[in-house]
């Protein structure tokens, strides 16, 4: 019971800090708008080409936003020396990981919904049939990114060249998630049912399970700093 309360305390804390400072949220929203413009300028004119690259472009946007959000997730702890406080709190440290993960997940999903909305509006895409399947894929993909991302963010938080090392470590490991989500999104946007991409969904579920379990087990080792 205390485990859940501690995890929720971390979630609440992160969301409260974010809601008041809005630092990460602002950066993400601004970044998403920027991406939208860049994609429009480079791809927007040719509707067919756009439709072909849309899944990749969409997830590129999601991944880049994820890098931004996850890279900052322990920033507040580092800046205010709260890291030691987290470490010295007695009890299972994985509760802190879980709290951080949930907070990151919520933030990332919020931004992804915004980006998706912008894409629908500005590129005139019809999502009505694909939406339920898309929601599943986006949820699973984001969980995968956030799970390893939170762990690696903790690992790189106190290390030299943090901003460089974090994406270098995260992206290769996330290739399965990237491939699965892009391919599944592609199929869904072409009108295929979720069942047609079942193997990708299963891969995502397996990947998410592996990532979350390993992170829960090894987070306290990383927090030891």
């Amino acid at each position, binding site marked *: 019971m205390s485990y859940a309360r501690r995890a929720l305390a971390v979630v609440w804390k992160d969301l409260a800090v974010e809601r008041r400072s809005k630092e990460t949220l602002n950066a993400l929203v601004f970044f998403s708008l920027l991406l939208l413009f860049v994609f429009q300028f480079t791809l927007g004119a040719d509707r067919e080409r756009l439709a072909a690259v849309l899944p990749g472009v969409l997830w590129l946007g999601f991944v880049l936003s994820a890098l931004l959000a996850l890279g900052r997730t322990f920033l507040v702890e580092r800046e205010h020396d709260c890291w030691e406080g987290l470490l010295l709190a007695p009890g299972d440290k994985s509760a802190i990981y879980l709290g951080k993960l949930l907070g990151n997940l919520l933030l990332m999903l919020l931004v992804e919904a915004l980006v998706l909305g912008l894409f629908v509006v500005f590129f005139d895409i019809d999502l009505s049939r694909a939406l339920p399947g898309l929601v599943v894929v986006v949820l699973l993909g984001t969980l995968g990114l956030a799970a390893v991302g939170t762990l690696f963010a903790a690992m790189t938080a106190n290390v030299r060249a943090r901003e460089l090392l974090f994406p270098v470590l995260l992206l290769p*490991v996330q290739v*399965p998630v990237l491939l699965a989500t892009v391919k599944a999104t592609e199929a869904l946007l072409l009108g295929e049912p979720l069942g047609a991409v079942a193997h*990708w969904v299963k891969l995502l579920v397996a990947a998410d399970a*592996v990532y979350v379990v390993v992170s829960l087990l090894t987070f306290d080792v*990383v927090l030891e700093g």
Partner: protein
Amino acid sequence: MVKTLGWLTALALVVGLLMAFVVAPREVTQGNVQRIMYVHVPLILASYVAFVVLAIASILYLVRRDPAADRLAHASGEVGVVFVGLGIATGSIWGKPTWGTWWTWDARLTSVAILFVMYLGYLLLRGTIDDPERAARYCAVLGIVAALDIPLVHFSVYWWRTLHQPPSLMKPGGFTGSASILWPLLVNLLGFVLLYAYFVARRVRLLRAEAEAVP
């Protein structure tokens, strides 16, 4: 002990390479360039051994916090990355005259490239952390995550593309090449695995000497 290992390695490699470049039959369609396969495949397979050892040593380190396990993981990672790099290079050299291109994004090549980058990241992480104990811990976690990720990478990439030569050694039906190709391949495989072991043994020795030099 390490010296014996060194001699055995040299022996296996000399025999293996002789077999590969002199004894083995000249391939009909590809010509002599195909002989690179006898070096390319063992390099890649030996690097897989390196990464399995790295994963196991990483788990051992987290469980026992034994610096020797960390040194093994460290050395294994270094040698593994070099072998993968050389494996990719020899693959490209084989590929250019044979298939007309240095590189293609087929399943096998893509998987190996991702492996290479993942373990380069491992070495990079080691390089940026000064505190040896923290480096050991973080790299152990990274090593385990990367190792668990490999089957996921393999499947996702394979489903995404399939163009590479059908794996002749590891197909369920068994090896379909003739014995005159199999034997040089196996001897070279042994040679390169021994070479890996020899390099790791030397490197671990060096690492231990460095660690013991600290007061």
